[in-house]
Each structure stands twice: as C-alpha cells, then as structure tokens.
C-alpha cells in the first residue's frame, strides 16, 4: 500500500528529524500550505520591494532593445568580433544562458525520477528560470547572424521557392532543433505542473477578472480522481522524456565546438563536461534566485536549509567533474603531441588571455572545493556568494573556449585579438534584464512553489497513519 505515488512516501519517518534535514517546517496542514503560498500571488497590494526590483530589471531590459535596434541599423560590426575571432560575447552568452537553463528541467525531471522529494519546493521556479534563461539564450543564435531578418526562418526546414533545405550536418541546425525542442518541452512541462495550482488560484482569487484569467489557464481542472490519474501518468512521461532531452541539449551545444577543427574546440571530452558544467551553473543560478526569494517572501518553511545544502552538494559534484574536464584538455594537448594543441593550451595559460584562464580555474576549480566544509555548505551568505562566483566562472569558461581558441589557431599570419565592445556588454546586461524582468513577473502572478506537491508533504497526507487510525 505504501510508497505508491512518485513522491516516495516510504522515507517518511526520518523526514522530520533535525533542523537541517526537514523539507517543510512542522505545523503545516493543507490549508496553511495552500494559503501561505497562494497569498503571495493573490495579495492585492504589490510590495514596494517588488516594484523596486522590477523597475531595475525592466530598466536593464531597455538596454537590450537599444542594443538590438543599433545592431539592426548599423550591422554586426558594432560588436567586437573580427576575423579570426568570428564569435564573441554572442555565443559565449548563448552557451552561458543555455547552461543556466538546465537546472530547472534537471530538478523537475531527473530528481523526480530519482524520487528526490526535496526537489518539490524548488522545481517550480527552477523550471520558470529554465524557460526564461532559454529565452535569453535563444536571442543570440538569431541576432548573432549577419542578417537576422532572414536567419530566423531560413534556419527552419520549410518548403520554399528556392527548393533549398537547411544543412542537417551543421551543428547550428542541431542547435536549432535542440533548443526549440528544449524550450517547447520545458514550457509544456512547466505548464502541466501549473494546472492544478492555477485551479487553486482560480478558486482563491477575489476579483472576477483574476478568476477568469486563472480559470482560463486552469482549463477547468477539478482535481478529480480521473484527472489526477492521467495527470500523474503524463507528468511521469514528460519527466522521462525531459531527462534525455536535458542531457542532449548541452551535448548538442558542445558539438558546436567539438565538431570544429579549431584547436581547443576539437575535443571528445566536451559533451560530458559541458553537461556537468550546465548543471553546475544551473544550480548556482537556482541558489542565486532562491535565497533572496525565500527571505523576501518568508518561504523558509518550504525552502529549508536541506534544500540549499543539497544544491551545494550537487554543485560540488558537478564542479569536480568540470575540473576534471579541464585537466583532460591539458593532458590531451600534452599527450597528443599535436603542435597546434600544445600551442593552444600553452597559449591559454601564458598567452594574451592567460588572466581569464586562471580566473576561470579559480572560480570553477578552487572555489567549489570549499563546499566540502559542512559549515560553509550550510551558511546562507556564503552559498549566495559562491553562486555568483560559479556563474562568473562558467561565463569565463565559455570565453576561454571560444576566444582563446579562435584568436590563435593554425596560421600565425591570421592571429588576432578580441575585446567586447560597449554593444556586446549592452546586449549581455540587457538579457540579464530580460531574465530578471520575467522572473519578477513570474513570482508576482504565479505560485513560485508547487502548491499541490507541497500538500503531499503535509503530514496529514500520510495514508499509512490514516489506516492506523481506522
């Protein structure tokens, strides 16, 4: 009878022991869970703090619009790219965002399949974060092209008057397929997860207008046994599909480089350590967001220390994998005896961009090892700090891979240097603005924590105990 639903009831008994272990503070019942989460959305007054944050984010987003308009008018040349460094901030940021966009689906899907209950309170906004990160990432593949006004549809296979089709051998086309698929599936997954909570909001909302809005979105969800029956199956299937997807996406992104012949790109180690890096970066971003969120909305009851620590552990593990990847790169270069590879790694360490390389080592190899210490792992300020360090580190990783590999490849005659222009920065900061803007809208209008799944963590939801009673 026990351990039936995917929420793994079996380990219930050790669930409420120590402070650090619990997933939900004691004393909560169905009602309290429901109300405390939904009130964030349903409260009439929007807190001033929200307005401030939103205004800031929205302001940043205007930079993006400016950067894009300028780009379209004047040309891609406003960026720092040159020959030989044909990619710069554009692809760096693309990979960076896509990487961040991995945590959500991972938490929702893989941890669901692994029956990690602690995922429950963070998966919702992790998924939202995924969507928004992917939106930011998707901006670059389009606008990094010389002619975005045709690129955005010439990259898709459709029967055109030229009788031409995309080149399915090109990793960029793989990207198109992978990213669009990932965006679609994540959105579906997120929406499906939202349906029951939308129904909750529909039933709680005071104003008629909001009732209608949430009612439309809830599509008439009634929480009937039949609904739940199919719903659970669908949710599990989606998780099962999203898992290989999330692994494939960053693998494909890594193919952009791994299938190239540029020394520093052409490496078989890329797929695994890109995926690891993505998870690494993703969890860092989840921390960056969840720590202020729980503080601001007083959600410490639901996002407990155990959540934070678990995420820290994941970061430690993936961080070590990434570090191993760097080691392999250096080792391959030395062991292959290939002059170009050798020069490449030497150039990374001592060349014009040595600084970024060592900064990267500091952020991604040295820093995460501090998480071995339980004290640091359970110190909220430190986790908040390290999450930033990791984000910077992962950005630097892409910078090193793309720029330092390209700027000195095969023919010394064509070597060059790269630096982002103010428009590169504007676009980058702008996407961060877009990301935050979306996050703010999300926490204001949708439940940042999955209400119905939290209900399943409430003690009263225990069938076993119930049977003991009867």
């Amino acid at each position, binding site marked *: 009878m026990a351990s*039936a639903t995917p929420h793994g009831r079996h380990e219930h008994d050790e669930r409420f022991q120590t402070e650090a272990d619990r997933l939900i503070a004691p004393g909560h019942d*169905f009602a309290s869970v*429901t109300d405390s989460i939904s009130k964030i959305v349903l409260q009439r007054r929007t807190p001033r703090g929200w307005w401030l944050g939103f205004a800031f984010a929205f302001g940043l987003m205007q930079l993006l619009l400016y950067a894009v308009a300028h780009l379209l008018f004047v040309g891609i040349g406003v960026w720092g790219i040159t020959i030989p460094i044909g990619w710069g901030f554009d692809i760096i940021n693309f990979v960076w965002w896509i990487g961040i966009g991995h945590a959500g689906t991972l938490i929702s899907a893989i941890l669901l399949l692994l029956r990690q209950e602690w995922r429950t309170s963070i998966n919702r906004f992790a998924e939202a974060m995924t969507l928004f990160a992917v939106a930011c990432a998707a901006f670059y593949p389009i606008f990094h092209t010389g002619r975005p006004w045709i690129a955005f549809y010439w990259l898709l296979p459709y029967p055109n008057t030229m009788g*031409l*089709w995309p*080149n*399915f*051998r090109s990793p960029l*086309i*793989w990207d198109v*397929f*992978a990213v*669009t*698929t990932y965006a*679609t*599936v994540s959105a*579906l*997954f997120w*929406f499906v997860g939202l349906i*029951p909570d939308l*129904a*909750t909001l*529909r*039933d*709680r909302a005071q104003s008629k207008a909001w009732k209608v809005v949430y009612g*439309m979105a809830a*599509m*008439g*969800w*009634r*929480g*009937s*046994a*039949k*609904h*739940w*029956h*199919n*719903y*659970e*199956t*669908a949710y599990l*299937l*989606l998780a099962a*599909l*999203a898992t*290989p*997807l999330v692994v*494939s996406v960053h693998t*494909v992104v890594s193919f952009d480089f791994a299938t190239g012949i540029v020394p520093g790109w052409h490496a078989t180690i890329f797929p695994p350590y890109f995926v690891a890096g993505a998870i690494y970066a993703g969890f860092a971003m989840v921390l960056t967001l969840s720590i202020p969120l729980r503080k601001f909305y007083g959600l410490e009851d639901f996002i407990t220390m155990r959540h934070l620590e678990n995420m820290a552990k994941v970061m430690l593990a993936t961080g070590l994998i990434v570090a191993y990847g760097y080691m392999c790169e250096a080792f391959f270069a030395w062991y292959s005896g290939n002059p170009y590879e050798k020069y490449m790694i030497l150039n990374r360490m001592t060349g014009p961009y040595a600084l970024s390389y060592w900064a990267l080592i500091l952020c991604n190899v040295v820093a995460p090892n501090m998480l071995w210490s339980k004290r640091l792992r359970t110190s909220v300020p430190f986790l908040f700090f390290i999450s930033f360090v990791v984000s910077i580190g992962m950005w630097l990783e892409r910078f090193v891979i793309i720029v330092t590999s390209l700027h000195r490849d095969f023919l010394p005659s064509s070597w060059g240097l790269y630096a982002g222009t103010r428009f590169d920065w504007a676009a980058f900061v702008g996407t961060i603005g877009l990301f935050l803007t979306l996050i703010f809208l999300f926490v204001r209008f949708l439940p940042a924590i999955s209400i*119905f799944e939290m*209900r*399943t963590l409430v003690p*009263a*939801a225990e*069938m076993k105990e*119930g*049977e003991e*009673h*009867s």
Partner: protein
Amino acid sequence: MKTPIYGLLAEFHSPHEVVEAAERVHAAGFRKVDGYSPYPIEELSEALELHKSHLPKLVLAGGIAGLLGGLGLEYWASVIEYPMNIGGRPFFSWPAFIVPAYETTILFAAGTAVLGMLFLNGLPEPYHPVFNVPGFALASRDKFFICIEAADPRFDRVETAKFLKGIGASAVSEVEH
C-alpha cells in the same frame, strides 16, 4: 416536482475518509462516480477502480512518428530533393542526421503526452456542474469530495444522499446542471 440535478456531492475532511468512502461507494455498486482531492491520491482512483491510462501507448506512437518524421525529412531533403556535396560528406550522412531526429522524437512524444492528457481528461472544460456547489472551491485547498451522478442507474436523490451521510460525509449537497 424538482428540477433534475447532475448528482450529489459529498464532502470529506481527510484523505483517509474519502478513500474509505470511495471504497464503500464502489462496493455499493455505484459506477458513475468521481472523487475530488487537492492533490493526487492514488488510493482514491484505485478505490474507484479507474481503468489503466492509455497515455503511454499514445506517447510511444508520438515518439515513433517524430523519429520517422525527422529522419524522413533529412533523408528526403539531402538525398532525394537537393543532394549537395557538402565538405566531401556523403549525401546521407547518417551519423550527423541522428541529432535532429533524436530531438524531433522527444518533441513529438512530449507534445502527445500533454495533448493526450488533456484529451483523456476531457479538458479544457471551464464549465462543470460541480462548480455550482459553493463549497467545492475547497477541493483545491483542503477538502475531499465524492460525486455520484444522477445518471447512475442506482442513483436516488434521497436514498443516495442518506447513503453518503452514512459513510461519513461531513456534508452532502445537490449539484445542479
């Protein structure tokens, strides 16, 4: 004498009660029955003996369609429609073609899963009689319900109400159409 109704809605306070009640209702031979809970309770559907979901089969079909569709498109476009010598690679560069096909597989499967779920649940269905019962709003908070439809052959407006009271419903209300 009275206007026909959709059915009777019984309210319960805890998951155990509703599951227990559901078992009784089912034992009593009611078949046009549905239970309502704020979170998924597998035991409830078991109690009502809902048949196994067909969703997995649909999703498998969707996945296969995606795979064949993707591969087919790639083969047709680069071997039949406009074969091009690209970097000395053969027209049918199958290793490279795996990736997009893989993605379409997942895309189609996932799409089917969601649409299939909605379809099997008869959603979207913004209007439903049970919403007419004022207390039903709590079904998405902390209350549990069982609804026996008037369409059920064993349904009797008075007797069934009594029966429901009998199995521990804290309240029983009539559901208008």
